């Protein structure tokens, strides 16, 4: 009995516990780690990861996968930087990025639902196109000319609170509310769990899938803006690197509380966990390459613990 209790406890809280353990280890090893300044540092570092993680979470909830988010974020970000370099205001630049993300999300949705191509392939293809367009536009060179107001998205503060933290909170509140409290949010889960039963219950699966891909695209566009703001210039290769970590973050999130169920709080925990590890290792002056090994191990351990005892 106590054994069963232990297993169910581990399955529920493994990811949260590992986060706490990681924080404790780093705090003991390096006093500078556990400070408000460093906390703000971490939020700055995980903003993009969290937003793209949320983007991927939407796709995964609806029973699909979106491999294009990193490339779409890159293209959207670079076009925003380009627009600003050509004299656009920051607001217009952001709107351009969001539109690009939205457009690619819509295209993904149409290709998957209307043409019936599997999302794995559809988004891989469209992502490659986005990457190609990024290089066509930049000719491979960084784009410069960002204004202060654009850069402030990553480094500014409002009432002494970093803007990235405010963005994280806003995105968290909106998407969490949407997925838990609105009909379309619940329908996304429904079609992801069982498309056939959803269809038989009268849900319009195609529209819902397109909507979900569009939200993913929109969030990718937003992620693109913040990547470039953080880097200070338009880097054509900045986006794609986020894809795998975004997927990892979403899956880490699915191991929080309920096994195999994607949700926004979980994605947030996942992003914080990975962000904390990278930050801590950097502070401890651990060689950069170990970060990959550490994040890989954490992903395997957390998801492994959460699925422990499943098949017995």
């Amino acid at each position, binding site marked *: 009995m106590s054994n069963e209790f232990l297993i169910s406890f581990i399955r529920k809280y493994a990811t949260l516990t590992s986060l706490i353990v990681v924080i404790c280890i780093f705090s003991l090893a390096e006093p500078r780690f556990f400070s408000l300044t460093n906390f703000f540092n971490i939020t700055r570092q995980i903003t993009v990861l969290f937003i793209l993680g949320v983007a991927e979470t939407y796709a995964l909830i609806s029973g699909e996968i979106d491999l294009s988010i990193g490339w779409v974020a890159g293209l959207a970000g670079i076009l925003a930087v380009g627009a600003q370099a050509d004299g656009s205001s920051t607001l217009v630049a952001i709107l351009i990025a969001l539109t690009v993300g939205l457009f690619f999300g819509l295209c993904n949705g149409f290709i998957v639902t209307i043409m019936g191509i599997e999302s794995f392939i559809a988004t891989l293809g469209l992502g490659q196109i986005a990457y190609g367009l990024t290089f066509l536009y930049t000719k491979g060179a960084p784009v410069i000319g960002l204004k202060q107001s654009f850069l402030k998205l990553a480094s500014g503060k409002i009432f002494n609170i970093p803007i990235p933290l405010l963005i994280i909170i806003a995105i968290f509140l909106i998407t969490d509310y949407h997925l838990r409290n609105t*009909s379309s949010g619940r329908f996304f889960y*429904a079609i992801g769990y069982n498309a056939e039963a959803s269809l*038989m219950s009268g849900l319009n699966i195609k529209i819902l899938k397109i909507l979900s891909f569009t939200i993913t695209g929109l969030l990718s566009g937003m992620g693109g803006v913040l990547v470039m703001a953080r880097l200070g210039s338009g880097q054509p290769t900045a986006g794609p690197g986020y894809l795998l970590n975004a997927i990892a973050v979403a899956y880490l999130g699915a191991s929080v509380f309920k096994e195999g169920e994607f949700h926004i709080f979980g994605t947030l925990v996942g992003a914080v966990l990975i962000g904390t590890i990278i930050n801590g290792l950097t502070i401890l002056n651990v060689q950069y390459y170990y970060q990959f090994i550490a994040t890989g191990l954490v992903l395997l351990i957390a998801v492994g613990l959460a699925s422990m005892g499943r098949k017995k």
Partner: protein
Amino acid sequence: MSLQNQTTTVLKVSNISKRFPGVQALLDVNFSLYKGEIHAIAGENGAGKSTFVKTLAGLIKKDSGTIMRNNVSVKINTNLDATKLGISFVHQDFGLISEMKIAENFYLGRNFPTKKGKIQWHITYSETSVWLSKFGLSKINPREPTSTFSSAQAQIFTIAKAFSRNAEILILDEPTASLTSEEKDILFHSLLHMKDQGISIVFITHKLEEISEIADRVTVMRDGKVVNTSYVKDITVNDIIRFMTGKEVGAKYPKCNLALKDDIALQIRHLTSRKVKNISFDIYKKEIFGIIGLVGSGRTEFARLLCGVDPLESGEIKLFNKSIKFHNIREAIENGICLVPEDRRIQGLIMNFSVCENTTLAILKRLCYGFLSHIDKRKERKITQGFVDKFSIKAQNIDQKVKFLSGGNQQKVVLSKWLSRKVKMLVLDEVTKGIDVATKTEIYKILNKLAEKGMIIIMISSEVPEILGVCNRIGIFYKRQLQGILEAKKTNEEEILKFMFGRSGV
């Protein structure tokens, strides 16, 4: 039913117990199996039948108790242990790889390699053919993929495969659940054949008439305990039901409503699609209309057509004197036509959703308010609780996921999902499949009440007694056409079967 070997006990189980979190699934189960007998296990959903046979097959680890195989104490901790002891468990979904050829599936992992490791395909194919013909599947080509099998063929194939691996004890978990009556006959024939060879067979069933048809002994389980084991010849179906429920049996089928013959509720004229041809009939107010037919006769296809799942080519549907048209499921639902589909786990419910989330799935948009379309959770819970009380749905609470409910309760949730809307016509496809006797009767009563209140009820079933007991009139499908309509009171099983096999002329 000769029992020449009845004295040899091949398997003896003593005091097996198993606890799952929160439930005592098995408590001190005692069970014995004779050589060459067919031993049925009956019980309501959740009685522990599946858990019990799975412990025998090593798929579930028991907490305590002993198992004796041929009077030797044995340990069965894994499925491999069971296989080595000659115990073979046939999965409900047969465990076949549908893309692979029949012979490859048959000899999976053991196909006649040469010394160098190359598979000798000609032997594999010919050996498979020999085995198949022993089990009455001689027409099957072992080079075809297993996806060409019907359910019965897959079932028999799996049994043949187990037999070819020297199984001496065969365990079947509801083998007839998805079979038509003729497929069932083929299966039973091969079971009797195996029995004659001295194989012992344990099989779980929900269909009590099958027990007297084929089993030598029956063990009834209730709440994780064995209530009774006796020879089938010494026990009646009513006894079995009493043991299963612990209660005296009432009438299995409720009394039918009187149909109002002057009042036509539904008119169907020349309905045609790719799957059915020229169907025309009327349904009167307050009656329950049954539809029966063999697999492939078009009964399920007709239901899908009527509910907008498959497209209509021509024909007219008049609902309460109003001609209606729809092009997809959504429009059919908007017109008040709802389908309780054949497979509740795949088509009817979202297993990972709670009772509440499933119940309100079809009305969720109406429960939302405000600019942000916020779900009114209080209203949602109130509606669900109403159905849980009304249909006495057994769940821990309305937030429990439906995958943890028994089949009968799941089906009640599917009904709740539709009845939360204004339904004019409810089409039910095999609504009581795999559901225990007591819940079946409850569902019949619900349907009766709905019909009484004026809802058109069309019930599709492959079980003749059920359709005779529940429906006022019965439409029989044969080769994609309506072969005839019979009044339940004026007909009998035999006549219905004749129609089902295409012999309409009396």
